[in-house]
């Protein structure tokens, strides 16, 4: 059977994750346990959710530079209002999702570059987060804490959650007809429009769904850390973009892969632990993390080139 190009796309991220995992286990055999795996991948869950949100935005050829501040804002809401008065908290989250939909509409109607709009929004979310929680603090809602620290049998929660996220979003984005049309907007929005679909509505729905996953990311993050501060997730903007690209997605053309995105998020998290196990000083860690990214992406380019060469022969 001939491998489809989307399967080939998944090989590199999966292989790099397996390789990193093998290296970590080799250096620290004790990580090869229930607790070890949970510790390794715990922080990957919110990153995976943020990566999925970013992936949805990238599926319609846009980019969200406010992901980090938005997740921070959601974490602040989750640590304060959602815990003290859940109804208000949920209302705020619904409002935030509506704002995301509105951003999608504005970007589409005014033909604005999404980078500019979301960069502007990142300051809005950042400001709101500081208003919610001027100094680090707050506490996680009990159910979020319970969910993130649950101990299912055999497989640790972090892994279960990652698989669940990948499966659900794979169904939404790759299998459902909503996902097909969304990716169609990324591939060729004019033809989707000519076929009678409302691209404004599609973009609004995509942004709203992305907002929803970002909200989940914020709640999951608070569930893990038990408290929040206004700058808790600033790294997520670039991490989420790197996760999507690492997982085989592309910036334009609606080529995305939810499974790949989750794998990408896991790989990024693992790269950090790997470097700590290597006893690389924190001063060098960010650079080394970048080097890992470069290697993986170079591998993918090489594979793409091989694929096109095969096609022309």
């Amino acid at each position: 059977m001939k491998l489809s190009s989307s399967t080939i796309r998944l090989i590199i991220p999966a292989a790099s994750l397996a390789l990193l995992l093998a290296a970590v286990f080799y250096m620290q055999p004790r990580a090869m346990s229930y607790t070890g795996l949970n510790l390794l991948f715990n922080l990957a869950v919110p990153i995976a959710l943020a990566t999925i949100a970013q992936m949805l935005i990238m599926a319609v050829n846009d980019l969200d530079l406010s992901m980090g501040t938005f997740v921070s804002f959601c974490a602040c809401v989750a640590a304060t209002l959602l815990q003290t008065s859940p109804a208000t908290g949920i209302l705020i989250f619904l409002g935030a999702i509506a704002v995301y939909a509105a951003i999608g509409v504005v970007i589409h109607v005014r033909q604005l570059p999404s980078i500019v709009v979301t960069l502007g929004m990142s300051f809005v979310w950042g400001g709101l987060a500081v208003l919610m929680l001027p100094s680090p603090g707050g506490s996680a809602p009990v159910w979020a804490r319970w969910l993130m620290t649950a101990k299912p049998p055999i497989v640790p929660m972090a892994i279960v959650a990652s698989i669940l996220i990948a499966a659900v979003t794979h169904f939404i984005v790759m299998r459902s007809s909503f996902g097909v049309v969304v990716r169609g907007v990324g591939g060729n929005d004019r033809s989707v429009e000519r076929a009678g679909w409302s691209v404004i509505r599609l973009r609004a729905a995509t942004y709203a769904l992305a907002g929803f996953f970002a909200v989940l990311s914020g709640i999951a993050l608070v569930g893990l850390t038990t408290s929040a501060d206004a700058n808790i997730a600033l790294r997520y903007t670039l991490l989420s973009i790197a996760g999507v690209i690492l997982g085989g997605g592309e910036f334009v053309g609606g080529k995305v892969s939810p499974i790949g995105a989750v794998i990408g998020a896991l790989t990024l998290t693992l790269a950090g632990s790997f470097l700590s196990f290597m006893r690389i000083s924190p001063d060098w860690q960010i650079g080394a993390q970048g080097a890992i990214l470069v290697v993986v992406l170079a591998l993918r380019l090489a594979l793409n080139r091989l694929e096109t060469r095969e096609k022309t022969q």
Partner: protein
Amino acid sequence: MITAHERQEVVAARGIRVTFGAVKALDGADLVIHSGECLGLVGHNGAGKSTIVNVINGGLTPHEGTVSYSGSTDAHGIATARANGVRCVFQELSLCPNLTVNENTRIMHAGLKGWNWRARALKLVEAQLAEVFPGHRIDCDSTVDDLSIAERQMVEIAISFAGTDQPPKLVILDEPTSSLDAGLAAQLMAYIRRFVGKGGSVLLISHILGEILSTCDRVVVMKDGRVVADRQASEFSTRTLVEAMGNVVREQEWQRAVDKPSGTPVLSMPPRRGRGLSFEAYRGEMIGFAGLGGHGQTQALLDLYLSRNSNWWPSRAEELAFVAGDRSLNGTFPLWSILKNLSIASLGGLSSRSLVDAGREKALGAGWKQRIEIRTPDMDNRILSLSGGNQQKVLFARALATTARTVLMDDPMRGVDVGTKQEVYDILRSEAATGRTFVWYSTEMDEIRLCDRVYVFREGAIVAELVGDEITEKNVLASSFAAGEAA
């Protein structure tokens, strides 16, 4: 024979006026399509064909005039047109390249809802492909990206003809055969006749007049935004059709360079893939790459270009210029003005101390505008404000304005009208006379006949070389098919 007025009107556009700024795209055009007929629409680039198609399919609201679907004028828009069974295959391919064939079918057919739509979409498109193009060998689970340009066009045509609950009433085909080879085009034309025979209607836009005359019942000729002729196809011949469009039919035979080329070749290439003939081009020659579409001609052109340049460290190749075939993919800079699009390749010569001399750039633009008649009031307009043929002219001017002595052309005349083609042919001839060499891949026989020497490609290798009077359709076809018949 049933006369037109006895049949039911499917779509009628009457007295349509559309203006884009100062340009009158449509100036009171009428177009009525009845059920059970194939209507041919011909005209120059910029005559208003694409505009009237956009009005009919609801993408464009006319500034004046009425559009009625099955006699009712109540509503207008894309949704109304689709609800009335109007489907459109556009000139530029309009599938989503990142989706699979069946996912594209889902996008085009809103009726494929609910559980298990994938399997139903697959069945629908496979059945339709088999009906239009028997023996097509397209895997409908593969991504459109992985298909060749001809296969994409086949898929798009099949998707448009397919019907979920009811078959389409009117299918508009805008240059459907531009990327198909002769065999596939014949299959499509035969299918159109069957479709029309069952009561459907087709609006066929093509620059290949033979197709129009053999397939259509009625032919409408447009010129400058108006309908200038509307008659039964049987009353037209190629000559009268071209005359109605406003072109004078010219003798296409050229005085070929009779002398056997001599001296050192300006470009050469060893036999490709270790078989067939080697390639050589001499100064002032016009060389054609013929054969069925997709048999390695484009790759050969790219290899020729790379033979003078490096894939690792590309530099500006001074002696070679390339005219791309796929305008939107690798030809135009869509956000730039016409002038910028034209001058990009010769900026080095136009600048002093690495600053572009705006005066000289303008002069270059004005010169080429006059020489190849780019139809625009202002060279500072966006390139996309031009019709397809005029965009292509700009791309030609871009290559010819450079100092390059050799020009490689990758089927550049796709979807360009007869008049424009004749103008470009004249320019090419005069340039060749001054010693420029042209290597020209074309899928059209008329263009191949213009060349001094022709290499016929089959399965990635050059299988025949035809010189002078040997260049005939018969010989080219014979060389393109020879192995298939022997096997």
